[in-house]
């Protein structure tokens, strides 16, 4: 297990939680994103995720470094699964430990927002009567995607 990884097999939360736990950690937050059956009244059959794997792992590690900079003392592990996933499967896990709880919550939420901004992973929703690659068709800023 790598602390920042793209995986093709089911995500087991335990090993990421164990990775971030240490004697100085008073709080651990674990976020898991799951495949949901209904989105905007449309029934999802399954999702297919694709990634630019080496860059995605670099960007996950970058997010981890940003978190450690912004919330000193946090320890982070993030994994995203790719391939076909069905209802309730875990697509992404973010595990954060911290001496105190506030940072564990804030840093965790920061991570999922950043993943949705900069990590090259794409989700295709497959319904009974169609499919679509998701991702806002917004124009990227000229100064680059990295800026907040």
């Amino acid at each position, binding site marked *: 297990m790598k602390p920042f990884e793209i995986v093709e097999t089911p995500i087991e939360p335990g090993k990421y939680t164990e990775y971030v736990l240490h004697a100085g950690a008073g709080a651990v937050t674990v976020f898991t*994103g799951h495949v949901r059956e209904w989105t905007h009244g449309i029934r999802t059959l399954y999702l297919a*995720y*694709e*990634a*630019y794997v*080496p*860059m*995605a792992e*670099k960007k996950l590690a970058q997010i981890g470094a940003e978190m450690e900079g912004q919330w000193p003392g946090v320890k982070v592990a993030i994994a*995203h699964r790719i391939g076909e996933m069905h209802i309730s499967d875990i*697509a*992404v896990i973010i595990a954060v430990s911290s001496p105190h709880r506030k940072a564990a919550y804030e840093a965790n939420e920061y991570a*999922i927002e950043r*993943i*949705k*901004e*900069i*990590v*090259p*992973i*794409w*989700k*295709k929703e497959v319904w009974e009567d169609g499919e679509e*690659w*998701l*991702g*806002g*068709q*917004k*124009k*990227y800023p*000229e*100064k*680059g*995607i*990295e800026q907040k």
Partner: protein
Amino acid sequence: MIKVSYFARLRELTGKSDETIEQQSMTVRELLEWAETTYPGFGKDTVHVAVNEEYALKEDVIQSGDSCAFIPPVSGG
């Protein structure tokens, strides 16, 4: 020779995962214009380019030997 990769919607649009372009150097802007011309509907205004696994700006220059990836709007999480 510049290597380019396609993902998600762009992989399906172009019908390929990657290819090489016989160029010594070009800007990111030129690469996006080449893609739009070659693959109508590419949507260059919504696509980012990564050069050697880092997001690049439109003015950045790509050299022969670089690995580029077209990054349509991401939707992980």
